[in-house]
């Protein structure tokens, strides 16, 4: 644990903290249909044009049901569009490498993956997809799915902050405004910055390079493409789908320490800002910061374990003469090293980003356990763009419900009484994630089609499958790797897991927004459950950890936990 790493971490957390309020204020303006931002003069004409195109007025509001239908319809249509683009890419322009059509199962998986903000990459970007497929088919979703996530979070926050109303906002307005006022301008600036660091942005055919030592290697084809434009939104929108198969470990995607640092920061920026937005909308900024602090505590805890474990390295390799001081460098980009890899892994799985700059498969068991746990907790540690906040709000409601009784009142959150219907909806959101992950992994573990794809026997193989379905259902998209998941079975099951994990979670959450929004508020008194301050933070962290840990501990015990003990104490090699 080098002092430089500590300084980098402090800088990282400090910058995140510093940007939370300004971004939260901007989000509050963007997510208010009548909000004023500095971008108004430039963007308003486009906004008005788009409203005319869709046929809505900015003042229109939707009930939770109509909001849900709009979101699902939009997602379905855009998913079909992407499926079509992938299947027909050989007929479409911008295909200098002349890639053929994408296989049906792979196209389904990819379309589901990008529609759900998962960005699981069953395909190899530079070896399967044309520039057009990447830009039109995928980058579209990078913007749209991120905006949809933010929209759902905003709808839920509106449900909580409003009272005695039937409407929770307008999906189309949220979609348009989030893109025009936030994602597109921010991505544009970030893309320019990335280009300054050396991220490429072109439509050239791939370059063939002749190695100096022609005996050792044949000519290499070096992929090209419009990277910067996709990378910017990939991080800001917590998408994570890289242009290249190697994702953020590729020098074209992530060329410098600065680009690496700011890409990590970009992942957590919007999720962090949304906590401020929550506090502002509930007129309880201390609550917003309490949620932020709870997230930070879990983030630092997870990072510490991962960092410690990677620094400690693998004792078995040390026994074979590998320098223990190096830590576990297997599967890591030497440009980044232990700390930046551990931090990146923690950031990308805390949020539902899924971009990677190191192979999680090659982490030590405890180091790899942490990203997996982050995903299984529901990616509520800052979390995905929007998805993190709405996931966390489910936990907040559960925390308030479980512990709230202990103040001698029936539980209430933000002045809303939490009743049977609300608990039912929260429980549904929780159940869908658990059942999808455990159900599919259990199936994979006993089905020959499932186990055939793993490249490591024993506990590590189980971890690979568990990670894949956790990543899919959690809409993370990072791969543990080591799993040959490009089979029809995996493409289909993972695709279904992504859709379940996204839409079967969003529907109860929007219903919750509707239910809370319709309630009458109760005044806050000294007898009200306090949703700020250390007690609440401890309770929230406790609830997330206990509910998450209790659910997944048995599965983890047979995977990374057993593996850890096998590595440290057992004589057997698996």
């Amino acid at each position, binding site marked *: 644990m080098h002092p430089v790493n500590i300084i980098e971490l402090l800088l990282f957390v400090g910058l995140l903290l510093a940007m939370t309020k300004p971004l939260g204020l901007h989000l509050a303006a963007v997510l208010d249909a009548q909000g004023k931002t500095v971008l108004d003069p430039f963007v308003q004409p486009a906004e008005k044009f788009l409203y005319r195109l869709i046929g809505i007025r900015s003042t229109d509001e939707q009930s939770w049901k109509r909001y849900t239908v709009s979101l699902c319809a939009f997602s379905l249509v855009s998913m079909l569009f992407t499926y079509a683009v992938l299947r027909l890419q050989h007929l479409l322009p911008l295909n200098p490498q002349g890639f053929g059509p994408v296989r049906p199962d792979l196209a389904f998986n990819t379309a589901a993956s990008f529609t759900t903000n998962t960005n699981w990459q069953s395909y190899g970007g530079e070896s399967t997809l044309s520039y057009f497929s990447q830009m039109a088919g995928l980058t579209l979703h990078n913007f749209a799915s991120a905006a949809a996530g933010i929209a759902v979070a905003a709808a839920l926050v509106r449900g909580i902050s409003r009272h005695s109303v039937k409407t929770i906002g307008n999906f189309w307005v949220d979609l348009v405004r989030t893109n025009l006022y936030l994602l597109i301008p921010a991505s544009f600036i970030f893309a320019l910055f990335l280009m300054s660091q050396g991220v490429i942005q072109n439509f050239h055919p791939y370059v063939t390079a002749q190695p100096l030592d022609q005996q050792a290697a044949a000519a290499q084809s070096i992929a090209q493409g419009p990277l910067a434009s996709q990378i910017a939104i990939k991080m800001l929108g917590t998408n994570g789908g890289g242009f290249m198969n190697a994702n953020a470990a590729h020098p074209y995607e992530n060329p410098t320490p600065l680009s690496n640092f700011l890409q990590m920061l970009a992942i957590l920026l919007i999720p962090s800002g949304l906590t401020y937005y929550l506090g502002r909308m509930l007129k309880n900024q201390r609550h917003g910061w309490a949620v932020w602090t709870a997230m930070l505590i879990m983030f630092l805890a997870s990072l510490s374990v991962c960092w410690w474990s990677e620094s400690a390295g693998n004792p078995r390799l040390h026994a074979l003469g590998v320098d223990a001081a190096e830590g576990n460098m297997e599967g890591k980009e030497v440009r980044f090293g232990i700390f930046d890899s551990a931090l990146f892994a923690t950031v990308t799985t805390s949020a539902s980003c899924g971009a990677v700059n190191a192979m999680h498969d090659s982490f030590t068991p405890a180091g790899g356990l942490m990203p997996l746990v982050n995903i299984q907790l529901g990616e509520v540690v800052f979390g995905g763009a929007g998805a993190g906040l709405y996931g966390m709000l489910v936990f907040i409601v559960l925390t308030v419900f479980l512990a709230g009784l202990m103040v001698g009142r029936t539980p209430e959150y933000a002045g809303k009484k939490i009743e049977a219907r609300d608990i039912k909806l929260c429980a549904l959101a929780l159940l869908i994630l658990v059942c999808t992950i455990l159900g599919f992994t259990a199936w994979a573990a006993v089905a020959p089609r499932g186990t055939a794809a793993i490249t490591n026997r024993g506990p590590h193989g189980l971890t690979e499958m568990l990670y894949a379905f956790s990543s899919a259902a959690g809409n993370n998209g990072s791969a543990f790797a080591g799993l040959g998941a490009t089979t029809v079975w995996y493409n289909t099951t993972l695709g279904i897991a992504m859709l379940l994990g996204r839409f079967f979670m969003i529907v109860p959450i929007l219903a919750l927004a509707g239910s809370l929004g319709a309630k009458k508020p109760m005044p806050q008194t000294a007898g009200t459950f306090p949703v700020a301050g250390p007690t609440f933070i401890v309770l929230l962290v406790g609830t997330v950890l*206990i509910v998450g840990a209790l659910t997944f501990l048995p599965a983890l015990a047979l995977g990374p936990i057993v593996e850890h003990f096998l590595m440290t104490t057992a004589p057997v090699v698996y």
Partner: protein
Amino acid sequence: MAVKSRSLFDMEIALPALADAFKKLNPASMLKNPVMFVTEAGAAITTACLFKTAGAGPFLFTLQITLWLWFTVLFANFAEAMAEGRGKAQADELRKTRTKTMANRLRAAGGTEQVSAELLRKNDVVVVSAGEVIPADGEITEGVATVDESAITGESAPVIREAGGDRSAVTGGTRVLSDRITVTVTANPGESFLDRMIRLVEGAKRQKTPNEIALTILLSALTIIFLATVMSLKCFGLYSGISFSIPVLVSLLVCLIPTTIGGLLSAIGIAGIDRLVQKNVLAMSGRAVEAAGDVNVLLLDKTGTITLGDRQATEFIPAEGVTLQELASAAQLASLADETPEGRSIVVLAKQYGLRGRSIAELPHARFVSFTAQTRMSGVDIDGRRIRKGAAAAVQAFAGSLFPPDIRMALSRIGQSGGTPLVVADSDRVLGIVHLKDIVKGGLKDRFDRFRAMGIKTVMITGDNRMTAAAIAAEAGVDDFVAEAKPEDKLALIRREQAAGRLVAMTGDGTNDAPALAQSDVGVAMNTGTQAAKEAGNMVDLDSNPTKLLEIVEIGKQMLITRGALTTLSIANDVAKYFAIIPAMLIAAFPATAPLNIMGLQSAESAILSAVIFNALILIALIPLALRGVQFQPVPAAVLLRRNILLYGLGGLAAPFAGIKIIDILVNALHLV
């Protein structure tokens, strides 16, 4: 209904409860409690495993697991049966009051007939004379009587019941001590107040309260999650080359699902109503008890709740040139015929000034003028004197001249102090002032302070003028008051508070309180009140003590806290159970995981058995807590939360580590595995 308080495990209740615990094993009745239903299903599955030889694990181990699983279900059933049994015992005592009585029913044609009380129907009219038992609930339509209601209230002093006004309701089973009354029956047999109370405390018609339903949903969801966890674990085991036996998986499942709160949830609810009954308060539904915990505003009548019934004369203030004796004498004369408590208190006070007691009989030539709403004075015309006492404005009009300055000063001083001045005048000569004062009940200020700390606002309602109201409000320490309140103001106030999202509790007894009682979230009717008031409220206080509202709120809160504490404890317990069972399940296939056994449990089987035993024992250990409720302190929510989390959250996290370890040592010492 002099409810005797019972020890927690009274054998009279515990033995039948034990039998009920077995009866409740019927899966159809278990279904309403999903957590315990799953536990019972688990017990049934391990029982089946006993008869299967292959792959079911060692017989003795499975047998013990099976037995403890059944115990777990039985303990939960026992808790519920205990709570119900305590209710039934109270119901039986209530039922004893319903002796077979005969009634004198008025015939439509005139005259009376003797009929059995069971034959009485609504709107029948009966006549009850001294020494007879009132045969049914009803309203007095004629007459006044003293009634012994000790059978219902446990209060031995007889009460007066009279036709008209707010004290006209009589309850079946009470006894008329003097006089004779005509009563119109208001309830059919089986529907009387007493019958409803019996049904309620017996739990026959118990419905889950809203919060209980929400909690059941959450507990069910947790159960489903753990089912998924355990079932998937079987598959992961197969992948890892371990075949987890069914008894082991069932043990894990039962330890993980929240059996502690699941098993005790209904007992907590029943016990909540039960605790109210012990305070002589009958809640018409569990929902009302729950609402009591949520109340934000307490609407308190000044008279009877905050002050001791009536105003008392405390001081004579003579006008200049009038002696104290003279004033006292005149005041006494003017009050002799005044039967109001204020009037009587003046006579009593006058005696302290050495005046001998006079009675009306001594003064045959006196003409007493009684109080009317128009004159707002009372007094006496005697020996050419016209003595009057009354409100300042009325007496001034009577005396026909402005009061002297010293009187005016005294008047305003008394007004500001919240007292009521009565001016005494002899024709046009003002003699002085009688100072009437409200006596605030002791200990209230402290109590209101604690309510404030809990975020509960207290509002005093009074018909007094603003100044009087303000002074009493300050003395009693209430947060707010409504002066010069008319009955409809109460209703308006409740509606206003409710519109702002607050829950309102109030007490009332009169018919004109009925709308407000019905509108309030917790409406406590006094047993002495009218039938209409009792029908409108959702609780009845048999002691007719309005101050009890405060205790009702505390009991409501206590019930919710108990529920929350046991839920937290139940979930926190799971952590230790994991540390007992998961290493035990891994150790055979992966000996390297030995360090996970942080409790140092001696063998895999004893670890699993110990966790299951702990899970069963914690349930029975917590039955007293569930029935008594956790200790309640009136402090701000943040403090309460911190304290309960330390106790039940951290305690629930740590205690099972010790508990399971001790059981493991015993299990091995006794060679149970």
